[in-house]
């Protein structure tokens, strides 16, 4: 380690613990000195410090050593007393305040964050005024009676040569009542070294008179007399290059005049005087005193005998009153003498001697419970250990002991403790034990807020300087210190410490810490009226979602208050309230795609594209017209930016979020936009881009916004606690050019304007324009090329319901408007769900809705033909002459039918072209979107089964369930579709369903007869010409005036067509199927009278109801049922006729096998046996008609049935004729097969014991795929046919 004396603490000690010289002088001396602007002590001060005095010193030991550095402290006698604490405090406070002012102005710029590397270079950061402050603090406890080093060693008596009777003055000066109390109350020896000095002012005349007085003095006081001549310079213009007094005089303004009458002779003389005083008088005097005292101490205290005696004697003093300062020791007491000895030795650098004496006395004081003295001695011991560079542990132990002892004394020891602590901390710092030093500084803190603030700040720097730097501790202690500064109104210091702390806490995630620091800095800056800085710091804490509601409220109110105080229009780039969710940014603009409603915008672009595919001229064909045209009009560099149309709004959806628990109000939320007109295209755009770089462009932007080329929407709203709000902002360019959306601005609580720039790189835009976006760089996304005003269609469908019951059929009106003067033409429309919605005829626009469907005109017949052509293509083309312009609405009927339950999204897109060819865009599309909820209403199902008794007749069972919760329905009619079908009621409807009204939840079944009256295959064409012709049956009350609806006329037929198309997908088309349409009407909801609402119509459709015979072959056995026969004569022969009908499209071969087994079980046996012969299955198993039979029955059929019947059961009748009959059937034709049986006895017989094998022959022309999937062959058992034969008489 370096020489302790050269360390900061060493220097401090050598500075502070030095012999004190008491100065007593007459007023005239002072007067002479004041000519130089100095007091006498100040005048001598520069010369009391000796760096190389080189005096041999011999203390207690015989070995002399040389003293190099030496210093005297000069004090007026009046100053030698315990300093007034209040005054000292005031002085310290002033010192701190001044330092604060000075530092504050320097430190307004932000400090860079401290990291470990940087910490070292910041090492000088502890402000220099700490040194000064510490020194001042040490001095507050000087001249205490328990320490001898502040006691004057010598007394300097000074008299001016102008004084009358100088000798008498000398005597008077050392008058006891003027002396400090220390000398008078016995705290120290009043017999001290006296030195007599005569001051002569050369301006008052020559020094002869002074010399005379000096000799007189010498004769009176002996040799200790000297003469000092000052003010040798007559004119007072001596300029000292390095003014030696400046450091001793705090008043800087007088600097120039200090010592102006003192020339170099004077200075030399003063230097000489001080040197003589030290080396010739004071040091020898101290040596001598040390030797004397040492002898005394050795005599009384050293040696074994003395120690025992001392111990005994101390014990006996136990009953001494325990006063806080311990017993009073006079200067003559041995304890005081030991202390003086120690201190003198310390001052003369004989640390060993000092230490031994301190040790000696410390035990005594401890036994005496003289705590203050004990602590003082311990303190000195620590310092002595330090100075002699001995055991560190001992030194620290002593210091800690002293510190604790002082503290134990209570408030009276506090200042001493502070001093001790400072020394201790310095000591630790010298040894690089910064962490411990910081702890000591921390312990020094007491109730005195200002001191502790400074101490804490020093502690924080210790943490910073420790290795490795403890930055967190540094920050914490800075904050603690700042807090205390604030409490003593040292706001500038507080700000300084907090700002330093920010370097640690910047970007911290410890939210409370960050809020605390920033909020307080902001608040304090505000109190200093540095509002810009205040606001900047307050901004950091605004988005404090983790804080309690109350704190948030305080933060926000304080912020607004500060902003208000600034009194100016505040614009902030980083306003964190509210939060803007930039990823939610969504730009909606309309180029050639226009949208009828906001919901249409959110639909996927691909959806629209697929819908519009057929309508929009494709790129290859379009290149010749509009794209090329566009490239001519649009400058090349903007070709890739988005296009919008002048006069049409660009909408921006953005999400605002309030992170706080209190509501905030926002007003004037609008976009910041730039519009540069297209003439000055590129250069202007570049300029505007550059303007964006600097922060204060907002004013410029404001101006831009103001001009008439743009109009911006402003939105006011308030956000509740933690609320999120999506706001739509619009900008409408008025002229052509390039539009750039730059950012958003808003006003918080009516006072602070915040704005947010969309950073081009951080932005991700979800635009309605899907896949073309990916090619572009993001910065282009907010850039629009504004093109000339274009016509734009607005569309509306009314009254399109939000929800409807399934089957609801309505006429709607599509209303199109074009506000501009320019007309549009070539309109086309496509609807995504033609089942739900399709376009009607213009004629039906004016017609009454349900009535126009009624079957009373022949007009519809004509439209059927036209419509069937239309339906083949899904795009509806408006008539050629349709031109929309000038705001007049264009109406077109649409037919709506809620075809299916569920939530349906209807997409309608309308294509139109500009009539004016020169426009940049040739065509546009209008996209409409509608969400529809379809509720279940009537659920109908049909079951068609062939009538067993008649060929080509079917029984239809209709099941209807009303699934609504409240609606009631009345049936109007049931129609079957297809001209060959004829439907009729089995019974009058009143008898089936008397109430006529199907209530909610009710179900109904009724039966109908369906007749196929198609004559033959040959008479029909392959495809039915008008499949929608059909028959209808009225289900309403008989005799009602309402006519039946013609389901084959335009809207119903069209709707049915799409319904069929749809159901075809799910139901593989079966030619043998039938479609039904049930038309019903809901009851008027307001009236209970049971009257149906004539304006509403429900159509329910069931398509492809299979006519449900299992095989395409049906047959009917016809013959007598009851017969009389005389069996006595002969057996009875009965002829039967079987009519076989082939309902399939291909020719069939049918074979009828008759068996003479009466029991059906035998028959089953046969079949199963035949099945088993092909498969290896054993025993009973279920034979499925559909699968295996067709293979086996044909191959093995004949042989098996040729098996002779068992003899046990002879049937009462036998089949006669051929046992196997084969017949060929053309498609859709019938044939008769004669059958015959012989009956041998009367009875009732079941003639079902025959099997019909059928086999469809593949049609010769082409193998229809549809046919192939169906069964090509099968076997049917005979129907029961009961024949009763009675014995006739």
């Amino acid at each position, binding site marked *: 380690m370096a020489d302790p004396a050269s360390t900061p603490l060493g220097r401090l000690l050598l500075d502070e613990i030095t012999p004190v010289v008491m100065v007593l002088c007459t007023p005239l001396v002072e007067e002479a000195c004041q000519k130089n602007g100095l007091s006498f002590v100040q005048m001598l001060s520069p010369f009391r410090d000796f760096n190389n005095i080189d005096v041999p010193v011999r203390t207690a030991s015989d070995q002399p050593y040389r003293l190099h550095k030496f210093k005297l402290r000069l004090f007026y006698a009046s100053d030698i007393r315990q300093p007034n604490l209040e005054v000292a405090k005031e002085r310290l406070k002033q010192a701190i305040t001044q330092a604060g002012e000075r530092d504050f102005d320097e430190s307004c710029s932000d400090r860079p964050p401290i990291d470990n590397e940087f910490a070292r270079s910041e090492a000088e950061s502890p402000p220099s005024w700490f040194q000064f402050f510490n020194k001042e603090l040490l001095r507050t406890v000087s001249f205490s009676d328990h320490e001898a080093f502040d006691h004057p060693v010598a007394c300097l008596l000074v008299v001016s040569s102008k004084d009358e009777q100088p000798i008498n003055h000398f005597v008077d000066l050392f008058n006891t009542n003027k002396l400090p109390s220390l000398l008078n109350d016995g705290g120290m020896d009043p017999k001290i070294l006296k030195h007599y000095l005569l001051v002569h002012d050369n301006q008052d005349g020559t020094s002869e008179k002074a010399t005379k007085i000096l000799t007189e003095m010498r004769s009176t006081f002996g040799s200790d007399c000297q003469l000092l001549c000052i003010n040798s310079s007559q004119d007072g213009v001596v300029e000292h290059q390095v003014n030696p007094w400046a450091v001793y005089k705090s008043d800087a303004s007088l600097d120039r005049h200090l010592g102006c009458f003192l020339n170099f002779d004077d200075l030399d003389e003063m230097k000489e005087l001080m040197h003589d005083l030290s080396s010739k008088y004071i040091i020898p005097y101290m040596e001598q005193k040390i030797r004397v005292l040492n002898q005394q101490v050795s005599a009384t205290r050293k040696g074994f005998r003395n120690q025992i005696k001392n111990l005994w004697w101390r014990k006996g003093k136990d009953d001494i009153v325990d006063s806080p300062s311990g017993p009073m020791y006079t200067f003559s007491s041995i304890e005081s003498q030991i202390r003086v000895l120690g201190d003198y030795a310390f001052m003369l650098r004989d640390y060993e001697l000092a230490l031994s004496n301190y040790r000696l006395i410390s035990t005594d004081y401890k036994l005496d419970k003289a705590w203050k003295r004990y602590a003082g001695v311990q303190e000195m011991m620590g310092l002595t250990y330090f100075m002699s560079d001995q055991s560190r542990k001992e030194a620290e132990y002593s210091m800690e002991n002293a510190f604790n002892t002082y503290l134990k004394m209570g408030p009276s020891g506090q200042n001493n403790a502070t001093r001790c602590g400072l020394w201790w901390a310095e000591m630790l710092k010298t040894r690089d034990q910064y962490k411990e030093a910081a702890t000591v500084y921390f312990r020094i803190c007491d109730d005195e807020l200002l001191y502790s603030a400074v101490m804490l700040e020093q502690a924080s720097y210790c*943490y910073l300087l420790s290795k*490795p730097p*403890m*930055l*967190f*501790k540094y*920050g*914490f*202690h800075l*904050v*603690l210190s700042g807090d205390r500064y604030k409490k003593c109104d040292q706001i500038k210091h507080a700000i300084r410490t907090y700002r330093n702390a920010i370097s640690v806490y910047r970007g*911290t*995630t*410890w*939210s*409370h*810490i960050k*809020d*605390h620091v920033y909020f307080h800095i902001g608040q304090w800056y505000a109190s200093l009226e540095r509002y810009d800085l205040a606001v900047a710091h307050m901004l950091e804490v605004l988005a404090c979602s983790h804080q*309690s509601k*109350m*704190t948030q409220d305080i933060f926000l109110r304080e912020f607004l208050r500060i902003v208000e105080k600034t009194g100016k229009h505040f614009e902030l780039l980083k306003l964190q309230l509210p939060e803007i969710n930039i990823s939610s940014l969504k730009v909606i603009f309309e180029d050639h795609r226009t949208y009828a409603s906001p919901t249409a915008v959110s639909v996927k672009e691909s959806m629209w594209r697929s819908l519009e595919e057929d309508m929009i001229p494709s790129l290859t064909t379009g290149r010749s017209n509009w794209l090329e045209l566009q490239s001519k009009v649009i400058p090349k560099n903007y070709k890739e930016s988005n296009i919008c149309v002048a006069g049409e709004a660009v909408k921006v959806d953005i999400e605002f979020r309030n992170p706080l628990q209190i509501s905030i109000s926002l007003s004037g939320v609008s976009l910041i936009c730039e519009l540069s007109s297209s003439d000055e295209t590129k250069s202007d755009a570049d300029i505007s881009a550059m303007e964006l770089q600097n922060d204060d462009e907002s004013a410029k932007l404001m101006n831009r916004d103001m001009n008439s080329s743009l109009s911006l929407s402003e939105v006011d709203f308030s956000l509740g606690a933690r609320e999120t709000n999506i706001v739509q902002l619009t900008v409408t360019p008025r002229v052509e050019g390039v539009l750039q959306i730059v950012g958003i601005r808003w006003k918080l609580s009516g006072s602070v304007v915040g704005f947010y720039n969309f950073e081009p790189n951080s932005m991700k835009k979800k635009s309605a324009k899907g896949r073309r976006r990916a090619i572009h760089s993001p910065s282009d996304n907010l850039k629009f090329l504004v093109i000339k005003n274009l016509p734009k269609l607005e569309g509306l469908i009314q009254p399109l319901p939000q929800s409807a019951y399934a089957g609801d059929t309505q006429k709607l009106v599509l209303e199109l408007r074009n506000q501009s003067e320019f007309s549009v033409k070539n309109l086309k429309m496509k609807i995504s769900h033609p089942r739900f919605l399709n376009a009607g005829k213009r004629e039906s626009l004016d017609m009454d809705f349900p009535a126009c469907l009624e079957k009373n005109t022949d007009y519809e017949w004509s439209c059927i033909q036209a419509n069937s052509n239309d339906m083949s293509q899904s795009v509806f083309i408006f008539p050629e002459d349709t031109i929309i312009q000038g705001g007049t609405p264009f109406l077109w009927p649409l037919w709506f039918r809620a075809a299916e339950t569920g939530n349906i999204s209807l997409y309608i897109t309308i294509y139109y072209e500009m009539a004016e060819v020169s426009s940049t865009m040739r065509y546009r599309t209008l996209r409409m979107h509608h969400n529809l909820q379809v509720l279940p209403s009537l659920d109908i199902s049909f079951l068609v089964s062939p009538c067993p008794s008649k060929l080509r007749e079917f029984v239809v069972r209709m099941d209807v369930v009303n699934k609504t919760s409240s609606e009631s329905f009345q049936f109007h009619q049931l129609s079957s579709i297809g001209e060959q079908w004829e439907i009729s009621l089995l019974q009058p409807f009143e008898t089936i369903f008397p109430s006529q009204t199907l209530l909610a939840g009710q179900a109904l079944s009724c039966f109908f007869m369906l007749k196929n009256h198609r004559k033959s295959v040959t008479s029909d064409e392959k495809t039915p010409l008008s499949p929608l012709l059909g028959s209808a049956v009225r289900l309403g009350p008989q005799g009602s005036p309402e006519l039946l609806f013609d389901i084959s006329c335009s809207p119903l037929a069209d709707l049915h067509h799409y319904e069929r198309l749809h159901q075809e997908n799910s139901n593989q088309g079966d030619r043998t199927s039938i479609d039904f349409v049930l038309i019903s009407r809901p009851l008027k909801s307001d009236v209970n009278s049971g009257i149906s609402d004539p304006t509403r119509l429900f159509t329910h459709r069931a398509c492809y109801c299979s006519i449900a015979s299992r095989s395409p072959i049906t047959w009917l056995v016809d013959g007598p049922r009851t017969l009389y026969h005389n069996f006595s004569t002969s057996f009875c022969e009965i002829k039967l006729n079987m009519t076989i009908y082939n309902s399939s499209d291909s020719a069939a071969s049918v074979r009828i096998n008759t068996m003479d087994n009466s029991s059906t079980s035998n028959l089953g046996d046969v079949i199963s046996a035949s099945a088993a012969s092909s498969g290896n299955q054993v025993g009973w198993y279920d034979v499925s008609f559909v699968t295996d039979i067709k293979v086996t029955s044909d191959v093995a059929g004949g042989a098996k049935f040729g098996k002779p019947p068992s003899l046990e059961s002879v049937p009462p009748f036998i089949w006669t004729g051929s046992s196997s009959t084969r017949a060929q059937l053309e498609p859709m034709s019938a044939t008769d097969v004669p059958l015959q049986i012989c009956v041998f006895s009367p009875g009732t017989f079941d003639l079902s014991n025959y099997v019909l094998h059928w086999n469809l022959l593949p049609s010769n022309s082409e193998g229809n795929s549809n046919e192939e999937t169906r069964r090509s062959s099968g076997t049917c058992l005979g129907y029961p046919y009961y024949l009763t034969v009675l014995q006739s008489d």
Partner: protein
Amino acid sequence: MATTACFIIVSRNDIPIYEAEVGSAAKREDAAQLHQFILHAALDIVQDHAWTTSAMYLKAIDRFNDLVVSVYVTAGHTRLMLLHDSRNDDGIKSFFQEVHELYIKVLLNPLYLPGSRITSSHFDTKVRALARKYL
């Protein structure tokens, strides 16, 4: 139960990932920030201590006035820090151990990104229950 206790989990990057005031004393507005300050400053001390011992529980390593900071350092250098005013060493140790287990369970959650804030309410409830039990 301690009158004042603040429990905090600090990730290895010195970011607090879980905070809970578990003391029974009435909440004071400025207490939260003071506690954060003390705990934050104590991280420096933890840094010193953590590598001098192999034990995870570092006992009381720092103090501020009458508040003591006890720390438990997991193997991944996540620090569980408790600021408390009562001296109940065993209880605190058990508390830390059990919270450590809970923390490991949180880590095992594949949806939890290590070092991110623990938002599980279940974890919160459990920690508070443990605090009532041991502190």
